[in-house]
């Protein structure tokens, strides 16, 4: 399935754009997505951490992505 992925902060800089599309074999968990991202952009490993939000909610590594999910890469936040 194709998944649209939003990237913010340093994640956007690493990927090179705010919105990117990835093709992944179902079933795919957030852990799988993170592995795929690190494969494509090894610098993700250098971050303190990064999380994935699905439909504007943080989700754990064992969450299974669905075709219409809004997926976002959340590098370490620094608001306030």
């Amino acid at each position, binding site marked *: 399935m194709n998944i649209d992925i*939003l990237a*913010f*902060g*340093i994640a956007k*800089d690493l990927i090179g754009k705010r919105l990117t599309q990835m093709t992944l074999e179902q079933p795919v968990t957030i852990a799988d997505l993170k592995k795929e991202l690190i494969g494509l952009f090894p610098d993700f490993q*250098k*971050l*303190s951490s990064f999380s994935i*939000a699905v439909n*504007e*909610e*943080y989700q754990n590594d064992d969450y299974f992505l669905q075709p219409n999910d809004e997926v*976002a890469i*959340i*590098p*370490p*936040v*620094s*608001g*306030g």
Partner: protein
Amino acid sequence: MIQILLTEDQLSPSQCESFIADDAAGGHVIFIGTVRNNTSKKTVLYLDFEAYGSMAEKEMKKIAEQAASKFNVFHIVIHHRIGKLKIGEIPVIIGVSSAHRKAAFEACEYCIDTLKESVPIWKKEFFEDGEVWVAAHP
């Protein structure tokens, strides 16, 4: 009542103070964050804040709701600004009112501490010789 705002416009402490005013409140605690002119002894020129806007608003609302359920308070306001901010400008204001002051102090500190941990907002610091996404690297 809870009020959340994410905006590119200047934030107003007096507007936040008005929102939390209540005839039954005795204590109002306001936290105002400002852009510091230095970090780790390096001179900062300005900051640029970016947000995952829709999620950031949801997360700020969650934090305010959590604070309202944990502490005995009347009103909570959280305003956050995004975009380019100069030294001394205000990226965040949090205000809380309560009958007794202790709850307002605790709720206000809880909101800013949690906001800094979980709300999807990122700041880039600009120095004379470069720029860096804050907290991105260990």
